[in-house]
């Protein structure tokens, strides 16, 4: 059981009288790729907010590499190796693309409190930022301001920022949100490449399940705040309850 990098235990969350999550439990093994699917309002993002420390759960606990991280501040989680991306693009809009990546790379180093040396003297961060620029297919756009990128490019930058943080566990909250159908495959390709390195465990929220079926090791289905299934893609595909909940009885394509 020490294999699991993330363990979510009996998480419950209520806002006022509304119960958004009820008794959600699952584990993610190190190096694996799990996708959480579920209709709008199923509680996926709330679950992410709890895991990443943005919100506190009403009940239950979250363990990261065996440590109870429930309610820990986000900056500490990031330093421990748990990073997340956002459904709504969350970048530094008026910084250059390269600076968006560089500032993330700097976060884990001892140089981050340096007061009087020029930031460019820390070559490592810039080199890493350059490397990631290629990895997320944003070559040649490093000098642009992040706000001037297209939406799909901003999503790639967002993923790049996760890589710069070099998190052991990456939470992706709908990386393809608002991205056009033509641009989605390129984005999924970037994520596939991250998986291929084998250095990161990944937890992903996604609506476009057709796209992630073959890269997910396991798929968990959240419906009305309850985890109704958590299994390999093939089994999920055939699961009657999932089909009813998620697609109103239709088959998952």
């Amino acid at each position, binding site marked *: 059981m020490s294999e699991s990098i993330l363990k979510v235990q009996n998480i419950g969350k209520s806002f006022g009288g509304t119960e958004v999550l009820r008794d959600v439990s699952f584990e993610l093994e190190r190096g694996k790729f799990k996708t959480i699917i579920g209709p709008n309002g199923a509680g996926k993002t709330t679950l992410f907010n709890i895991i*990443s420390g*943005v919100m506190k759960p009403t009940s239950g606990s979250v363990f990261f590499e065996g440590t109870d991280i429930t309610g820990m*501040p*986000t*900056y500490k989680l*990031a*330093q421990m190796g748990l*990073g*997340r991306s956002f459904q709504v693009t*969350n*970048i*530094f*809009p*008026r*910084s250059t693309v390269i*600076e968006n990546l*560089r*500032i*993330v790379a*700097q*976060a*884990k180093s001892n*140089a*981050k*409190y*340096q*007061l*009087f*040396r*020029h*930031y*460019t003297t*820390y070559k490592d961060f810039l080199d890493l930022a350059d490397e990631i620029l290629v990895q997320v297919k944003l070559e040649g756009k490093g000098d642009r301001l992040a*706000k001037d990128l297209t939406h799909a490019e901003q999503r790639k930058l967002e993923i790049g*920022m996760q890589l710069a*943080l070099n998190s052991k566990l990456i939470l992706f909250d709908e990386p393809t949100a608002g991205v056009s159908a033509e641009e989605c495959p390129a984005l999924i390709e970037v994520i596939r490449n991250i998986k291929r390195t084998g250095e990161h465990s990944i937890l992903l929220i996604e609506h476009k399940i057709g796209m992630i079926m073959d890269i997910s090791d396991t798929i968990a289905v959240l419906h009305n705040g309850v985890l109704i299934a958590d299994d390999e893609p093939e089994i999920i595909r055939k699961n009657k309850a999932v089909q009813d909940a998620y697609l109103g009885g239709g088959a998952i394509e």
Partner: protein
Amino acid sequence: MNNKSKLLVPVIVLIAIIIAYPFVVGQAGYYLSVAMKVLIMVIFAESYNLLLGYTGIVSLGHALFFGLGSYISAILMLRYHWNFWLTLIPTVVVCVLAAVAVGLLSLRVKAIYFTMLTLALGQLLFVAANKAYNFTGGEDGLPGVPGLFQSKTASYYAIAAITIAVIVLLRKFVSSPTGMVLQAIRENEMRTKIIGYNVLNYKLIVLVLSGALAGIAGSLYVTYSGIVYPALASSERTMEAIFMCVIGGTGNLAGPAVGAFIVVVASTILNNFTNRWLLFFGIVFVVVIMFMPTGITGILSGRKKKEKDIETELVN
């Protein structure tokens, strides 16, 4: 690199003007005093710019630090006959401690509450200075603070040297790893937290540096004005810092310096005609906010155009 070489000529010209100035205007005069005031206010405005322009936090209590510097230096010089340069040590120490205290008390709450709290804390010294008559001279203040040197020209050069040193130091600071994090906080505070920065620590750092610089500006100011009085610690002083930053432009080092120059020179000229010069600034302030939100330096560097681009983007 390119940036550096582009700056080189204007910087040399500016320094040449600063050096030549006393020879042009005469060695004892009124114009030298105005220049000294400009240089001191440049430090004050730059210290505020660190908060407003670089980190994106709005403090209404900045006068607290200016006032602390003013009173500490004036009282130590007048009552205990300290040398001015020695008074800078307690000024910096007290301002650093005050900044930490203000920061720990108010930085944990959301931005708007932080702003309100700084307003309240900033008034503390103003009230205390008014009430502690025996020690501070109350409303009348304490006159007779000596100048930096016997010669006004020497004082001018000393102040100019300090101002230049502060700007050189700030130039290093804002492009250090820490300075870059401050700008990240300004751009997206939540994101800065999530990538692993302890935002509270960074805000404390900038508050401490900003407070210490404002304190030094306050200390220098009493040697220029020759008197310390409660208004130096009043919220009007904070407003002046905001004026200077907004008019000149924030988020770069040139802006507040330009703003300080304009505000000091204009208020000096207007003061000859009317006591209500603040009224004019109120109007200018509104016009600047409405029509040139990036300030004068923003317009000069063509940022205005980019702002428009954003607007059209949003409309589309």
